[in-house]
């Protein structure tokens, strides 16, 4: 009985470490390419679940121009290659 208890505890420990796939919402941006060849990330807001999958798979239609610094990112269709929702290495908003 003691052996089974050990086994149960060990296996329960392992499975408790598994990650749950919860619903996720992420800020996305258009990787707008300037004439200089430099990428200008332009935020387009937060997308969740099916909307997130859709924008990553099929691209995004920007309905109005966005002013990003000195550059105007025109209203247009932006293909999936230009849409990025993954996290980047900037951690300025972290608490230290």
């Amino acid at each position: 009985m003691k052996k089974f208890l050990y086994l149960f505890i060990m296996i329960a420990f392992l499975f408790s470490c598994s990650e749950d796939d919860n619903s996720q919402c992420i800020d996305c941006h258009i990787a707008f390419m300037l004439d200089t060849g430099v990428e200008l990330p332009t935020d387009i807001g937060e997308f969740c679940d099916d909307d997130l999958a859709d924008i990553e798979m099929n691209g995004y239609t920007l309905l109005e121009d966005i002013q990003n610094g000195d550059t105007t990112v025109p209203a247009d269709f932006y293909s999936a290659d230009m849409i990025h929702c993954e996290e980047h290495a900037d951690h300025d908003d972290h608490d230290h």
Partner: protein
Amino acid sequence: MRIIFTIVFFFQIFSIFSQDKGVVVDQESIGLEGVTIFFVDQNLELYSKNDGSFIIPKAIPDNSLIEIKKPGYITQIIQFKSSKNIEIKLESLHVQLDEVEIIESANQLGNTKLVSIEKKVLNDLSTSSLVENITQLSGVNWIGSGLGIQKIVVRGLSGMRVVTYLNGMRIENQQWANDHGIGFTELGLGEVELIKGSSALKYGGEAVGGLLYFKDAPFLESEKLSGFVSTKFDNSHFLSGNKFGLQWSKNNFYFNLYGQYTIATDYRLPDNTYLYNSRFRNQGIKFSASYRSEKTQHIFRYQHNAEQLGIPAHVCDPTLGDIDFSQILSNDLSLSEDYDMSVIRPLQNVSNHLFIYENNYFINNNKFSFYVGHFINNLKEYEKVTYPAFDMDLVSTQLRMNFRKKVNYFTINIGSQATSNSNKNHTVDYLIPDGTSNDIGLYSILDYEKKNLGFNVGARLDYKEVTCDSYNFQNNFSSVSSSSGLFYKHKDHVIRLTYSSAFRSPHLSELFSDGVHHGTNRYELGNSNLDIEKGRQFDIKYQWSSQHFGVILNPFLQNIKNYISINPLDSIIENNRVFEYTQFEKVTISGMEINLHYHPHFMHNLHLEQSYSIVETKNHDTNKYLALTPSNKIKTKVRVDFKQKNLELLKNISLYHIYSFEQNNVSQFELPTDSYNVVNIDVSCMLFKKIDLLIGISNLFNEEYVPHLSRIKDVPGVPGGIPNPGRSFNINLKYTF
């Protein structure tokens, strides 16, 4: 009830008295405690008691091999004879030439005296990773980035050329790419055997560069449930790892169970910045069960390993220009966010399932072994958050048979091996198309060993068929491999000469790649005209040792014809530089490994070990060097052992130093790398007789260094490459019960 009790008691007494016993003593005939008695053919071990005695498990057939070993003593291998008490006298060993010595030891891969086999004991308690542990051997390096992605390089060769076996099953996990790691961890492993170069006849002709054979820890003969719980913390990656293991046996039934969970964040560079996306996560579970009788043994093993690996030094929009440093490094770490793998990209998601059934049948001096293995590898590479760019299943099934017969001083091994591999994509875009490869091999090896002289000859015939419907391709590759060795011992001098040949047929990735490889930011093109790659190797090992000093010299020369390589082209597809597989007519790899061990008479518990590895490569077609040729290295280890008494805390202190020479011998499109020194220190203690404590500091002097085999040494815009982790400490605790 009383009758039943009497019958049970009678049989219990009978079984106790019917068991054979043994005793292990030292040169002064004093019993030795804690000696490992390893029944090689049964993969079963037990330990001697305080007086050196041990009870031999029931149903061990005559002539089974038993290995008796204890650190500080000369290992002995004997043949078991039933109804005869065994008394073994172990002689003290002063100079132990690491794991590379030509000695008598039980190996899966063959006879160490006749084949270039090296061994490394693996332990659940270690300050370094599985791959880093193995690379302490001379001539062995690793390629990778941080602790997440690591793979082994043997004498400058890696990937498809270094074949990996795990408990008898060949591991097929898309090992063609440098960003695809080894695919499993040290969980539950006991030992690894390594053949450098093309001598691995019994386990496949394709091991042109070498063969690694990982073995699980043996089953334990103990009706009391034994096990451990261990935890590890390493602050270079803020790595947290937990493991458990259980071992149990009863009435010739044996059971082992292990589990592991590890998470790690991005690693810290010497300048206290963090390499973004070098984080990883790993989960593993494995169990094995065995039942044996006097004539036969059945073993079933299952292992699941799931890994999530960030691929560092990438930006979201790969351009051919320089990368902005701030896009690949972070200035700080947030423990609440930086263990998260859900939104970092690129990401590899690897899931491996391995099933093995093994049957051994013993009769007289013969052993018949049969293996069936089934390996399912799923690799997903994510560029986007919600769907993978690649989703590939590689399913491999293998059958292997071996018949071993001993006749006087001769040992004959005859066997065959059949493998079927199937690669299937689940995404519209892919790098490697769907395809299959089936191969069958037959081999025969003859060993002769008598006192101070031995030789070995062997040959293997392989036939492989590769099919790819998308390209309407079907081709057959066949070739003969061979191996021969000669061993001679005169007083304290030992010499071994080996010659071997091997071949490797081109892999699906080399024949048909056509797409962006996100892990390397390259557009890769296969070449369906590739032919078989053939390697031939000469290896000489000379060993001399006295009571306090030992030396090993091991020069080697390998010629490879039709060497398959991937080379850049002057074109760009989908914003990535194009690389194409090609074949060079002749490549030479030569070098020398030297091992020294000094053990002063005035301080028997001090060990000084040093190894030198020198590797030189030449591409005769271009008159240049091969890409990713390891730099020459000097590895030094100083260890002080402390004799353990009841209340003593300290077990040993060891200091490990690597000096890597600069590498200027580079290929056409490769940059040289600088020399560096790295020092690690470990302190091992035992608390309350049950808890092992291991504390270590890696990169003690916070050296900023970029190994020549780093995956991230040639990042555009980062001159000199991205360094390895800076100084870090780690702590390991293991409670054994």
